[in-house]
């Protein structure tokens, strides 16, 4: 006789959907989705009890837990034959695209192996990450995010990604000619003023600039990230840039007050990478 989910969760009076008819039938259907894996009804119930107890807020329906995908999770955690193959066939489809983004750092096979290890191998006495799948999204999408994190961790360990993404204050002048020339002319003041103006922006506006300037994201990608239409992103960005340029100009005027005629001598000073001794020697030799 199978244990029912209602019985196992008798103390959870808040879960009214457990009393609806058909819950047990849905569980059986989920189990028969992968008959060859041999996951029992009871094992699935135990798994769902575990998931439900961890969920906050409490799930509103059985579907919200994706019982069929939880069967796969149980099979993998129990190391059942064919379980890993079934998991990969169901949820690893997006890894190819992720691997392309981290090309040069690892091959698709390498990424797959690392995701496999991360999902299935317990680390430092913690459970395998697959056990934390709560069903809030599809298993495939969740695995894709896991893969992206694996890629980012590898890039960070490799020290590459960090170097490529410059800080916003130094990346902005490379992209925006107006900032570029302001920095050429006012080096130290510019850095300080730009930093202050960036600090004064709202978190969202700073994030938008960062996404576009240092992460090179497209409007469509940003729209997905913020969950709004691309036109909204474009409008937000335009407003942010205008606000920033105006603030930097005002800040620079207040800080420096250099006249046009002084610009030439400022230009001559902007290069700081070469010591004054070298400058003097170089000039002496050309004169």
């Amino acid at each position, binding site marked *: 006789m199978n244990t029912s989910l209602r019985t196992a969760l008798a103390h959870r009076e808040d879960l009214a959907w457990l009393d609806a008819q058909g819950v047990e039938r849905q569980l059986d259907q989920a189990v028969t989705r992968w008959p060859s894996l041999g996951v029992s009804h009871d094992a699935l119930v135990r798994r769902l009890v575990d998931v439900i107890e961890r969920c906050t807020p409490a799930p509103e329906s059985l579907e919200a837990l994706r019982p069929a995908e939880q069967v796969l999770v149980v099979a993998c955690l129990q190391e059942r034959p064919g379980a890993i193959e079934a998991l990969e066939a169901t949820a690893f489809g997006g890894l190819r695209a992720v691997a392309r983004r981290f090309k040069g750092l690892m091959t698709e096979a*390498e990424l797959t192996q690392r995701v496999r290890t991360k999902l299935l191998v317990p680390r430092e006495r913690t459970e395998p990450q697959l056990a934390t799948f709560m069903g809030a999204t599809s298993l495939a999408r*969740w695995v894709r995010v896991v893969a992206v994190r694996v890629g980012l961790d590898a890039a960070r360990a490799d020290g590459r990604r960090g170097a490529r993404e410059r800080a916003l204050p130094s990346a902005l002048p490379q992209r925006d000619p107006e900032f570029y020339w302001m920095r050429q002319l006012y080096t130290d003041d510019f850095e300080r003023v730009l930093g202050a103006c960036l600090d004064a922006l709202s978190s969202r506006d700073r*994030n938008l600039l960062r996404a576009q300037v240092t*992460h090179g994201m497209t409007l469509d990608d940003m729209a997905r990230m913020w969950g709004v239409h691309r036109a909204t992103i474009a409008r937000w960005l335009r407003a942010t840039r205008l606000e920033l340029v105006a603030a930097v100009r005002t800040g620079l005027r207040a800080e420096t007050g250099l006249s046009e005629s002084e610009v030439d001598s400022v230009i001559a000073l902007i290069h700081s*990478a070469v010591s004054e001794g070298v400058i003097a020697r170089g000039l002496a*030799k*050309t004169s």
Partner: protein
Amino acid sequence: MDTSECLTDQQVAQLLEGGERPAHLDAHLDRCEACFALLAEAAREDACAVEDLVAGRYRLLDTLGQGGMGRVLRAHDTVLDREVALKILRSEAFGAEGLENARARLREEARCMAGISHPNIVHVYDVGETDGTVYIAMEYVRGASVQSWIDGDAPEPTAVVLAFAGAARGLAAAHAHAVIHRDVKPSNMLVDDTGSIRVSDFGLARSSGASDQERGFGRSGTPGFMAPEQTAGDALCEATDQYGLARSLVAVLTRGRSTGAAEGLDHLDRRVAGVLRIALAGDPRARHVSMTAFAEALERAVRPRRGRWVAAGLLGAGLLGALVSAPEPDPCATMGSAIDEHWNEAVARSIRGALSQHTIGRDPTFAASVERTLNTHARDWTEYAPALCRKHAQHPAVTRCLHEKLAAYAVVVETLSAPTDADLQAVPRTLSTWSLHACRDRADDGAPPLPRADVERLARAEVLTDLGRLDAATALLDAPSSIDLAPSVRPAYGLRLALGKATIAAADDRVDDARGFFFAALLDALRIGSVAGQVDARIGLASMALRSGGDTHSARAELDQVTALLERVPDEQRNEEAALAWVDVHELDNDPQRALDTLDATASNSLAHRAARPGLLLVLGRYSEAVVAAQGLTDALEAELGPRHPRVGDAKAQWAAALTHSGRFDEAVRIAREAVAIYDAASESPLHGSGWSLDVLGMALWRRGDDDEAKEAFERALSILPKRDPSYGIVLDNLGTLRLRAGDASGAEQAHRAAVETLRATHGEDHHEVGLAHANLGEALYQQGRFDEAERAFVDGHRMLERALGPEHPDNASLLFGIGKCRMKRERFDDALAPLHRATVLREAVPDAHDFLGIVRYAEAIAVERATGDIPRARALVRAAVADLEAAHRLPDDLARARAWLEAHPP
């Protein structure tokens, strides 16, 4: 969410599915780069991703444009070694029905374009489908679209009208094949280097005689350029394209200020306006009888008549205006024939005779290549120099650049009339950098013009420097200026002079002097606003920073500025120079992947660019690609320099090294022998490259199992290489490893100790090569059962490697593994745990390193088992090790051992 709380994978997935955004999410992302990067990466649309190698042939370089149906990318055709524009349909962007329709359109576009061969139509090379991606490969036209003329970069009106007449002839060729373009507009017409228009994008093209609806494609075209019959959905004909072309011409001549068909015509020259008025007739039957007739009418309208204004009406409006035929003589007219003085049959004969006096010059491939290049350059000059001169008549920098190019050409020809051996080695490189494209890029440079005599003198000095004739170059630079220079011109002269002296100092290895001169040049460039000058000076400063102690920090600062400058004023040649400097920076920073990314991003096909690739691919472990790259480089060099040139030997040695790493030992041995033979024949005294190619030969022989011959090759390499040569210690180290395999652990120990000493002397105490030699020494000691000494060697090596390459470098793993296994032999399992775990983590970051990773994981598992008794953890590790060893397809014994362990320890 709490502002300090990081996002879980589950939350990120939910956010991307449109789930509710937690409160304070932006505040958290603002301060947490890790969460920001995770969300940003996960949000990127992976559907956009296209394989880097389309159809196994086209390597994608960058995006040229993007539209509703797909993208146009610049790509390199790896089979025919040329650049192409690749139009790609994104199957993910359509539903099943829409996709079929879009595929049909793309195929029809290819079919339409492939049938037409005309200089004013972009050629189609190939069409196909691969992995659900439909693509067309077409000729890549370097340049902007006609839209850029509207945006403010148009040549003078006569040139515009004549260019449009050419486009009309191209469309006439399409009409002759019963193809109507249907979407003629400025953005579908590209302007090539010579200022000719190339009609492209036949995406809407169809056979004539049917309306859009009849053909089932829906009404399409671009509002503003659509003919009335197209808007009305009536049957289309050739005259439909005439209307679109005429509207485009009006848009260019009025800089986009006309909004209606007839508007703007009143401001144009009467004759041009008359021709356009007919083409813009509402009734297609009232337009010119054919596209050819339209082209001829346009040409007649601007045929020069003394003292007439073409766009007189527009002068008052301040929009544009030019005298078609000025009474003054055209200074560009005689430019084309100026090359004849330097290159003619008599000169060619004399050069042939001079070349035959030298070993390299006697090679028929080399001699033919030099003559062919001189011919091509001369032809380019005759064809393009007058056109460039006219097109950029208002930019003195372009004319000055042309004078420089002519002077440089003359120096090369003079040098070849009485060359030395060194000249012949340097000439191919000098010739390869000679290009008139560079002059086109100078149009926007702000430097004031110098007197022609000085320009030529400075250019000659540059070429002499390039050829290694530093004394002659210095003498030229030290000569006084031809005339007393005006104060306004002095900085421009100073800039060129400083750059010239800096280059000489750099070639002479006087790095500090070179830095001083480059800096002086930079100041002059800033003073006169010369972007090209700033770029040259900053690239020079970056190179000098790299040469004086590998100062990558300063080099980066300079090159960042160069990148910004080149974004503002694009310049292909300088872009490549900057990219090669970046490659050096990344290599010195021990980041070969970034070096390679940078190299690939330049998409250049020059020999300097190609020569840098195989080595980087090898370091990255991408051996099969390294084989292809090195083989391609060898072929290119052979075609350019002949099969006996030492640079061919160098390329072959790289090729052989790549083959060895790919496990193709027989081929590697053959190619390495050829490399050695080239060096042996090139000079009576052994060259340095000969030693290096012998090292490569030794490696190939060793891997093939011919240990005796390998030993001979290594020993010969050692007899050729001077002891202070950086390769000497590495060859010694290889010799040691060879001895270890032969079972001579004590001989190996001796060789590795010698290698350590030599590498210390040549590379410095803490160089990573010294660390790696310690790894081999440790192994030799381990094999002799001297575990404590071995552990010390591994520990020393690890310390050096960590200091040289940082703690995260994967090469640390082999030393940590060595430390771990020595401790296990001494049954110090607790002490072995940490290094073995660290080795596992480090190797996890290396692509395709399954074999080593499997072994390290297995060793870690055993240490876990013995030290902690945590069988589940050990089991998880062994399972991962088995997966690694299975993926490696090698080391069957290790795999069997790991599997046996699993069987002995069931869950």
